[in-house]
């Protein structure tokens, strides 16, 4: 009985990793046999060694810390403003009339196209990265918060009013929980944009951070470090996504669509 239960579970846990594992083994074999020159593509073991060296000297941790701090600061600023404006425009017709047209116009400018301007304004300092990340995460958070509040069931709002909820209570108990699924969509989308923006910004103009580490390595033809930086970005993106999923599952457990099977 327990055997019948564990075997499929074990299979479910291992099957998704078969393909990546096979790729890594094939990759290692291709480089080791000289099929692929290690000047273009380092072997997985070389990447591991590069990671170990960078970790030992502390260079990896410094750069990782710098990048993470930038990402979180930019996210907090841009996400905070986007969330606040989304709430304001969702709740107040006046606020929406005043600001929404402007926001929609700015939204259509790709924020990465501002990089030359941002370098002129801020140089390659921290402000430049913070500004770009904040601008990037602002729009998905703003648009999804606004949409979430707009799509709250008016029948539930009427129910809350009939039962004598104050405006604050109505917001806390009906409007915000109702908007939450949509806000989470914005959050996950914004996290993706956050890493993307940071990578581009750090690759183009920086004197520290993971992107800088990768660009430095390119100067010295250290392909293994370049690949290491790329893999770390992938891991960070996956980590952010996993954390958001866990948060979603705990906040939205009332919703059958988010309940874990």
């Amino acid at each position, binding site marked *: 009985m327990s055997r019948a239960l564990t075997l499929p579970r074990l299979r479910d846990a291992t099957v998704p990793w078969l393909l990546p594992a096979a790729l890594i083994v094939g990759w290692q074999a291709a480089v080791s046999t000289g099929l692929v020159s290690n000047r273009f593509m380092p072997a997985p073991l070389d990447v591991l060694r590069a990671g170990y060296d960078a970790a030992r000297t502390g260079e990896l941790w410094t750069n990782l810390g710098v990048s993470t701090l930038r990402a979180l600061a930019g996210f907090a600023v841009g996400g905070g403003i986007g969330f606040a404006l989304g709430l304001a425009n969702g709740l107040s017709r006046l606020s929406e009339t005043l600001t929404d047209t402007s926001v929609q116009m700015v939204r259509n400018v790709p924020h990465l196209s501002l990089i030359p301007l941002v370098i002129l304004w801020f140089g390659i300092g921290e402000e430049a990265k913070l500004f770009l990340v904040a601008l990037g995460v602002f729009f998905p958070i703003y648009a999804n918060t606004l949409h979430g509040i707009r799509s709250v069931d008016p*029948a*539930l709002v*009427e*129910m*809350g009013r*009939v*039962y*004598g*909820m*104050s405006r604050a*209570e109505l917001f806390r*108990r*009906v409007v915000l*929980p*109702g908007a*939450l699924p949509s806000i989470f969509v914005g959050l996950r989308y914004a996290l993706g944009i956050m890493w993307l923006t940071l990578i581009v910004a750090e690759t183009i103009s920086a004197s520290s951070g993971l992107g800088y580490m990768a660009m430095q390595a390119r100067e010295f033809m250290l392909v293994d470090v370049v690949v290491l930086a790329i893999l770390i970005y992938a891991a960070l993106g996956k980590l952010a996504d996993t954390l958001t999923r866990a948060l979603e599952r705990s906040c*939205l*457990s*009332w*919703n*059958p669509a988010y309940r874990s099977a």
Partner: protein
Amino acid sequence: MLLDAVSRDALPASAPTAFRTAAPPRPAGRGLSVTVNGLHKSFDGNPVIAGLDLFLPAGSFTAIVGRSGCGKSTLLRTILGLERPSAGRVTVEAPSAASPRAVPPKRIMFQEPRLLPWASVLDNVAVGLTGLGTRAERRDRARAALAEVGLADKAGQWPATLSGGQRQRVALARALVSGPGLLALDEPLGALDALTRIGMQDLIERIWRTQGFTALLVTHDVSEAVALADRILVMEDGGVALDLRVDVPRPRRRGEPDLARLEGRILDHLLGAPQAA
């Protein structure tokens, strides 16, 4: 009007007194009376209610039936204060309340349960006590109200896990938990299957008889109106076309000849009305 006489004749002479004692045991305690004077309501210039006068005594059970678009839901929403009258007055008052603070609340049960999907069943019932007492008191009273509708064991569940009938019972518990003086029911059983609906009707009648609030039921189901109400208003063209007393003692058995005759008369009136297709 003719019907009124018929159903009175069908009862023994002592029936009216027997009925009065059998129905709400504390009629003067909680119920609110409703007075409607010269009510007009129009939406974008289209009159929905045109010059309606009505008095509902405290503790009574009145049903309003009529074709869709006759203004019955609008009348109910106006009495509850969800719509503003275009002209005329609606007064809801407690005949025996000494201070305005002691006036029991008005509650409405909608056609849909309108439960908060992100709150537990118990917290949904506690919404009915918004602004009253401490959180612990609210939860205790909510638990008691849930037990009254037979769902004590579902307190910790999400509304999404309940059946349609169970959700509507939670909505009933939420409406009743504050001890309302007026309960308006806006086609609350329309979406339920026939058997569940009969169970709910019995539940509503039982709770009404023990609690003594004034009940106002809007429904398109004439048999439901006949089974529950002691007075039936048939609405037509924004006014009351028929005002019938149902002097059949409770508990009423479904399919009783008096009820069937009454139902037949109302249906004849509704189907034979001039605007019938």
